[in-house]
Each structure stands twice: as structure tokens, then as C-alpha cells.
């Protein structure tokens, strides 16, 4: 197998090739590192590449396999969003304030991947502290959409989505606070899965909004996403918000998902309202038609409070973020701006270290928690959150899962919404409610617009209904080939080209 074939492998085919002895993890990893070096300056999907440490992990995996080891992800190279702590690797959350910071410990999800034999090949770009929907707020600059480098890959996990789409890694870990896995997955034509809040440990995931953040996988197929999901999911004593509920099912259960007979799938009326791009609507409706053709019964459901989701989210998430980001002040780690007094040091450090979007949200969050405003904003938003949760519980009591679009539009152009935060925030309209209600959600590729940009089908399941959602996604993918399409490689970077010659 040559390196051009190796980079096309997904997790499943890579594992099979290694099991047959046709591929070593070392060669696979080296091929991906080489491709990343050639393409990343165009895509800016990666913030750091592991190089020799990844090759060493790969060799260790190969040696273990030679001894008969068959762990779930043995030798599989995985890209990691740059806010998950991998001991000894940089972890910057896309922020200047953490540039140069090296993680002191493994996040629980990383420890579990390591335990399963994964190879940590690279770190992926993210909006600063995951605050954004385009990966443009990163201190490393914007990531480009592999389908069209003039467009954003979505965000905040745009680096992970672009890396998987562009064949820089067969799979990646990312995080989703208001849509940050599903929206970039839709924009980049990959599969992105946000498990239920409490299903996956947040220990070691640099916090944005603690009651909403959830770590999940991105991959090319639902089965591959499930492979990673089953390794990272489950109660963690280090995260008190994880659920003791046992993790059910496995990847094998998805292979036989070929139809949707006996399932009732709900279509929220509000998700097909004004503001939805006609092409996106048409592609989503076609995908829903496909689900009906696979045997699902479709029902319309009401989510009367979902229209308040964005307002509610942009109070609660910044409030939590304002406290979560208080620790970045230059006293113990990260970058410190010199000053004459303590207060000036705090001010200068944060002024220089944080970008505009982070500052906007910290100020917003500080404001809504201030004495005199707490009841009007934070407290009311918490009550609205409860109503939204109840909305979804009622809708999901009438059906097995909900279907809809992931995003109101396909990927927009880099810079298009930078001056208009509200337009950027409204891009989360179909995704934030899933976080507010603590549910699980999957985005699977479901077609392309006339300009060649991918769109995603959103499958929303009840809390801890991961297997149901994954089965629907797997059945859909078994009947379609959108997820198999691949963007053309951007022309290789001139500098890199020169070096390799």
C-alpha cells in the first residue's frame, strides 16, 4: 500500500489493513504527517503536528500488534482539538494567552484513547476557547474549508472537521458547546457526533461553558465515530457531571442497520421556517425522504420554545465562560504581560492575550451575572432552558428521534460574518437547543449545494439515546454515498513543495 492509499483509509479500513499485516501504524502515521506538512499551510487545519512522538507511539502500537494485541484503536492516528489536554503536547485553545503552554496531564478522553492504542498525530485549530462558528477567531488564523478554501469550515471545531475531510487524519476528537461538532461536520461533509451531556468526561477539556460543553468524535462514517465514542464514553470519577448510566451498544450493532422500519421520526416545524437557505432545505427534505423510503414513519412535532434558544444560550454560555476564563491572568501559567501593579498585570495580560470575540463574551457574561442584572438575565435564561428541555422531552415522547437541518446555510465565506456577531450567532440556531436540553445529536453528510458545498442532516436523540441516533445515521449512510465524497486536494504549498523536492 502506498502513502496515497494510506491517507484515504478510514478507521475501519485502516484497522483491517493493520490486522491483515498490509499496513503498519508507523507507515500510516508517517503518510498522514507528510500529507499534513504538504497541505496544512493552505488549510490551516492543524496547530501542531506530533512528528517523532506520534511515530514512536505508532511503533509501540505495531510492536503490540505483533504480540497479538487487538485493542479497539490500536495504531489509529487521531487528530485532537487544541483544547483537549494531551500530556506533553501544546494546548492553547486557539488563544494567544496560552501560546507556548504545554499540557501537564491527559484529559480523561485522551487517557481512554491512549489506553485503546490511539496515536496522537496532530492538534486541530479551533475558535479561541471554542467561541465561534467559523474557526476564524483562533490566534492561529482561520482554517479553510477543504471543499472551497474561500469558505470557512465552520466552528469552533473547524480544524478537526477540515482535517478529517482533507485526509489529514482518519478521525478526530472535538467539542460541542452550541453546535461546535455538528456545524463544522455539516460544512465539511464529515460525520460529527455530540453525545448526551454527562455521557463523556469533560475532565481535561479546556472549559468554555461547563453546563453545555461535551466532547465527541468526528470521522468519515458513523461506524468510525461510534468506534471513538465507545472508547471515550462512560462515567468518570474525575468529572462529577458524568452519568453512571452504562454505555450501551457497540459498532457491530451498527453494521446491520439497513432500514428504519418501525421508527417514528419527528420533524420540528420550527426547523423548516423562514431563514433556512432554500438549497439546504431542499437537500434536508431529500434526506428526510430517504429516511421515509428506508421505512421510517414521519411525524411533525412542535418545539414552541426553541426560538428562544439562541438568546438563552448567549446568556448562559458567556456567564459560565466569564468565570471559566478568569484563571487566565498570567500568574501561574500562560502568557503574562509585564506591568507595575497586580491589577495592571491582569488587565494587560487579558487585553493582549484574548481576542475580540472572547472579550465580548467575557464582558457579556460578567454583565449578566452582575448584582442587579442576575435575575433579569441569568436566572430567567435558566428558566427558559428548563422550558426548552421540556419541549424536547415532549417532542421525543412522540417519536424516536428528530430530523432537521444542522445549519441554516451552507459554509459562508471567510470574513463574511466577522463584523456581524449576531449573524454568526444565528448560525447555531438548530444546534444550541440540543446542548441546552442536554440531548445527543449527529450530523451526517446529506448532499451538496449547486456551488459544491456539503450540507448535513441533523439527527437528534433523547438523553442517552446515542445508539438510536447512531443506528439511524448508519442506516442512512448505508443507503447513500454523500459521506464517501472527497474534496479535491488544494494545490500543494509552494514552500513545502520546494522542500520536498
Amino acid at each position: 500500500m502506498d502513502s496515497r492509499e494510506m491517507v484515504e483509509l478510514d478507521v475501519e479500513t485502516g484497522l483491517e489493513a493493520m490486522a491483515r499485516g498490509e499496513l503498519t501504524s508507523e507507515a500510516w502515521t508517517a503518510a498522514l504527517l507528510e500529507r499534513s506538512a504538504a497541505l496544512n499551510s493552505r488549510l490551516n487545519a492543524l496547530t501542531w503536528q506530533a512528528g517523532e512522538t506520534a511515530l514512536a507511539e505508532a511503533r509501540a502500537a505495531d510492536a503490540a500488534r505483533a504480540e497479538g494485541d487487538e485493542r479497539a484503536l490500536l495504531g489509529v492516528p487521531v487528530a485532537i482539538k487544541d483544547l483537549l489536554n494531551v500530556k506533553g503536547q501544546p494546548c492553547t485553545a486557539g488563544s494567544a494567552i496560552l501560546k507556548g503552554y504545554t499540557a501537564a496531564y491527559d484529559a480523561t478522553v485522551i487517557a481512554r484513547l491512549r489506553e485503546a492504542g490511539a496515536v496522537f498525530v496532530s492538534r486541530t485549530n479551533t475558535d479561541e476557547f471554542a467561541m465561534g462558528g467559523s474557526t476564524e477567531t483562533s490566534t492561529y488564523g482561520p482554517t479553510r474549508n477543504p471543499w472551497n478554501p474561500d469558505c470557512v469550515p465552520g466552528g469552533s471545531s473547524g480544524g478537526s472537521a477540515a482535517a478529517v475531510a482533507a485526509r489529514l487524519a482518519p478521525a478526530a476528537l472535538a467539542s460541542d458547546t452550541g453546535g461546535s461538532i455538528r456545524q463544522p461536520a455539516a460544512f465539511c461533509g464529515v460525520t460529527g457526533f455530540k453525545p448526551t451531556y454527562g455521557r463523556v468526561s469533560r475532565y481535561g477539556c479546556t472549559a468554555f461553558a461547563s453546563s453545555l460543553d461535551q466532547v465527541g468524535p468526528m470521522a468519515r462514517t458513523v461506524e468510525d465515530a461510534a468506534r471513538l465514542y465507545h472508547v471515550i464514553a462512560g462515567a468518570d470519577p474525575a468529572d462529577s457531571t458524568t452519568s453512571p448510566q452504562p454505555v450501551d451498544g457497540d459498532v457491530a450493532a451498527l453494521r446491520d442497520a439497513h432500514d428504519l422500519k418501525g421508527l417514528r421520526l419527528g420533524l420540528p416545524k420550527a426547523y423548516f421556517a423562514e431563514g433556512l437557505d432554500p438549497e439546504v432545505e431542499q437537500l434536508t427534505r431529500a434526506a428526510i425522504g430517504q429516511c421515509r423510503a428506508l421505512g421510517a414513519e414521519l411525524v411533525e412535532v412542535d418545539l414552541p420554545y426553541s426560538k428562544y434558544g439562541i438568546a438563552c444560550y448567549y446568556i448562559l454560555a458567556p456567564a459560565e465562560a466569564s468565570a471559566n476564563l478568569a484563571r487566565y491572568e498570567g500568574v501561574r501559567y500562560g502568557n503574562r504581560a509585564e506591568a507595575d501593579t497586580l491589577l495592571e498585570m491582569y488587565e494587560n495580560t487579558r487585553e493582549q492575550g484574548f481576542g475580540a470575540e472572547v472579550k465580548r463574551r467575557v464582558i457579556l457574561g460578567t454583565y449578566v451575572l452582575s448584582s442587579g442584572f442576575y435575575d433579569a438575565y441569568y436566572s430567567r435564561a435558566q428558566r427558559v432552558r428548563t422550558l426548552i428541555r421540556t419541549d424536547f422531552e415532549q417532542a421525543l415522547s412522540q417519536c424516536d428521534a428528530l430530523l432537521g437541518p444542522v445549519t441554516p446555510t451552507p459554509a459562508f465565506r471567510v470574513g463574511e460574518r466577522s463584523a456581524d456577531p449576531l449573524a454568526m450567532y444565528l448560525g447555531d440556531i438548530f444546534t444550541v437547543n440540543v446542548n441546552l436540553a442536554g440531548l445527543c445529536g449527529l450530523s451526517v453528510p446529506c448532499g451538496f449545494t449547486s456551488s459544491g458545498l456539503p450540507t448535513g442532516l441533523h439527527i437528534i436523540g433523547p438523553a442517552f439515546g446515542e445508539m438510536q441516533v447512531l443506528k439511524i445515521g448508519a442506516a442512512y449512510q448505508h443507503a447513500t454515498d454523500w459521506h464517501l465524497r472527497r474534496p479535491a486536494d488544494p494545490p500543494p504549498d509552494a514552500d513545502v513543495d520546494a522542500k520536498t523536492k
Partner: protein
Amino acid sequence: MSKWMASIGLEVHVQLKTRTKMFCSCPAHREGEPPNTQVCPVCLGLPGALPVMNREAIRKTVLTGLMIGSKIPLRSSFDRKNYFYPDMPKNYQITQQAAPLCMGGSVDIQSAGTLKTIRVNHIHQEEDAAKITHLANSSEIDFNRSGTPLMELVTEPDMSTPDEAIAFLTALREMLVYAGISDADLELGHMRCDVNTSIRPVGTDKLGVKSELKNMNTFRGIHRALTYELKRQMDTLEAGGSLVQETRRWDDAAGVTLSMRSKEYAHDYRYFPEPDLPPVILDEAMIARWRCELPELPAAKRARFIQDYGLPEYDAGVLTAERAIADYFEAAAQKAGHPKAVSNWVMGELLRALGEKGQSIAEARITPDALAALIALVEKKTINMPAAKEVFQILFEQGGEPEAIVKEKGLLQVSDSGAMEDFAEQAMAASPKVVEDFRAGKEAALMFLVGQVMKLSRGKANPQMAADVLRRKLST
């Protein structure tokens, strides 16, 4: 103070005695560890770290609430208190604001000879900050203390004199040590106090403008600061001035309080529910079980010692001041069956010997059983008092059985009349002048002869019996 009355309220921070910190598994703070060695991602506030509740700290805080009669809500929760300071690794403190672990309760104190009840508003659970040391041109931060479990007990402003404040703290401290909640060592900062004071004209109800003295950690300092602060407030008002609500600092060297910040500069802590921790859910059965684990409190124990053992109030007070001593006394008293004698021995010889050695009762080698056996030997007149004290000293230093020591050292009291007759005759023969004096009516001469008998018997004679025998012989 005749025209004025004072209202004093306390916020007492107590370091709980737990194995690990409040939200991580680092060892709870001990003095003397090298700086920044008892730390982990959680108590350093590294990116991505999350808190995990220490159940033992929760239990200890609830036990404290049960001791003072608090209501224990079945659901309580944690909040974030936001403020920037370098000793706070996350720049927010995890504490309880909206729903604390313990609500209400009270502590009784003795105030100028009468009983006074001080109401407690609530007790909540929180984490300590790191320790910061300011040097000439820099500051050093030791995160070993960061995340140490604290409980904060907030009283109503029910105390009206510095003495009452100290009486409250003393009673609270005694309780906490008794129940093993805290070592409550003031020198090590295990108990730190914010003191709120205000004064108002006698006969009025509305509380005056209060000042808050921050972070006091000695009883003496609190007493002096309060005395100063009350006088300052009174002098200000009597001179026609007005007071502002403010936070003040006690300067111990200068003996004055100084303004730190007034109300308009007060922090807005922007409390909100801690999303990283689920609520604390307790159930009635668990609380009932914990209630059974409560030790008898000092005041109840004192009353029982007076009632059950017939001890004077003074003895009961001394014996119950420390739980280990009270336990020791009870063990010995139940064995010996003569509580007052046991009390005398414990308060006299035992506490003296411990004091001399600088030891705690746990280190004493004399067991309660041995002390009881020793007392029984005295009661039965097997040995006399000087011999008993000698045996005590051996038991204290080496341990062992009193009977065996008495035998080994030949300390059995001579009560044998034949031997006593011999000693008496020898003593009389050796001092004919004293014998004459006695016979001439000088009663004190008898004591000299008894002393001689004791000497001849090498201290083993029963002194009462020696006196009787001598008196009989001298009168014939």
C-alpha cells in the same frame, strides 16, 4: 458603653480535619511540606481540571450543624464566588451561597455568670485559598493550602461584648475539637474570623452602621480589636460624627483598626451555581446515622459528671475541658468506684506529670485501669499516700501493674501491730526528751515521733496506726 449597646456577629472559617482536599485527592494541608508539592491540576486551576466533592468534609460540616441544632436541608448546592486575587487559582472560589449545608442553630455561652444563647445563621462549605507571602519586591504563592476544606459558620449579631465573642469562640472551638471536626489550632490558622460590629443607642432596635474586621486569628487579637473598634465607634458618634459601612483591618502592633475599603467599593462577587458539581443530596437515614456518631458535648458532659459522679463543678470543668481526659477519667472512675478520688488523682498527679513532660494524655503509660487499681490499694490501706505517689510515678513513666510494683519495691504499708510496737519503742528510746515534752502536754511532739516511726519503717508504716500506738505507749 452605658448609653450604647453593641451587636457583634462572627463569620468563623474552620479548617476541617480531612485526609484530602475539598475538591481533589491531594493531601489536605499540613504545615511544613515544601511549597507547591501537595498540588495537582485541580488545586492549581489548570485548564480543563474539574472539582470532585470531598464527602468526608460534607459529613464533618453536617456533624457540626447537628451539634448546634441546625436544620439540615436534604438538598444543598455549590456556587462560584468570582474575584481576582493571586491566591485563588481559578479566580473564583467554590463556596455555598444560595443553599448552604446547615441552616440555623445556636451555641450557649456563659456571659458574666448567666447563660446566653448565640444564634447561628448558617454553616456553609467552601475551599481555602493558597498562602501568599509578600516579600520586599515580589510575592510567593504556596498552593499546598489551596483547596483545603473549610466550613464557614456565620452567627447572628447576638454578642454584645468582646468577652462574649471570645466565650462563643471558646465554646465553638471546644466543640469542634471534641467531635474531631477540626484541630482548631489558632496558631496554625485553623480558625479564622471576620468580626462584624455595630453600636446603637440603648433602647433602640435598629442595628447601627457596621464595620467588618477581616481575617482575625487570635482570641487576644479579636478581644483587643473589638474593644478598640467599639470605643472608636462610640467616640465617633459621641463627637457628633457618623460611621460608614466599611471593611477594616486590625493592626496588632499599633493596636488600632484601619479602614480597608468602604461599601461603595465592595466587591460584586457575581455568585452563580457551580455547573461542575451536582447538588449535595442527603437523606434522612444518612443524617440519622451521622447524628448517632455525635460525641457528647462538653456542656452535657459537665452536667453529667456532676450528676452521675457527684463531682464538684470545678472538677467537672477541669475534667471535661479535653475529651481525652474526660474519657480517661470515666474509664478509671468506673473501675475504681470512687469518682472523687479518681478526680483528685487525674487533676493532681496526672495533669501535673503530663504538664511536666509536655505530653498529651494519649502518650501517658499509666492506663485508667492501673490508676483505678492504685487508688484501690490506697483505699484498702495496702499502701500509704507517699508510697502511692511513688508507685504513680513509676506507672506514669514505665506503665505496669500497681500490685506488682508495690511488691517489687516493698512498699506494702506496715499495719502489723507487732512491728509497729517495735518501731514505736525504738523511736521513744531514741528521743527521751521528746517523750518528756509530750508527757508535759506538748501535743506536737507526737508528730515528731510519728515521723521517726515512718523513718524507721522506711515510709511503709500506716501513719494513723503509728500515732495510735505511740499515744497508747506514751500514756502508760
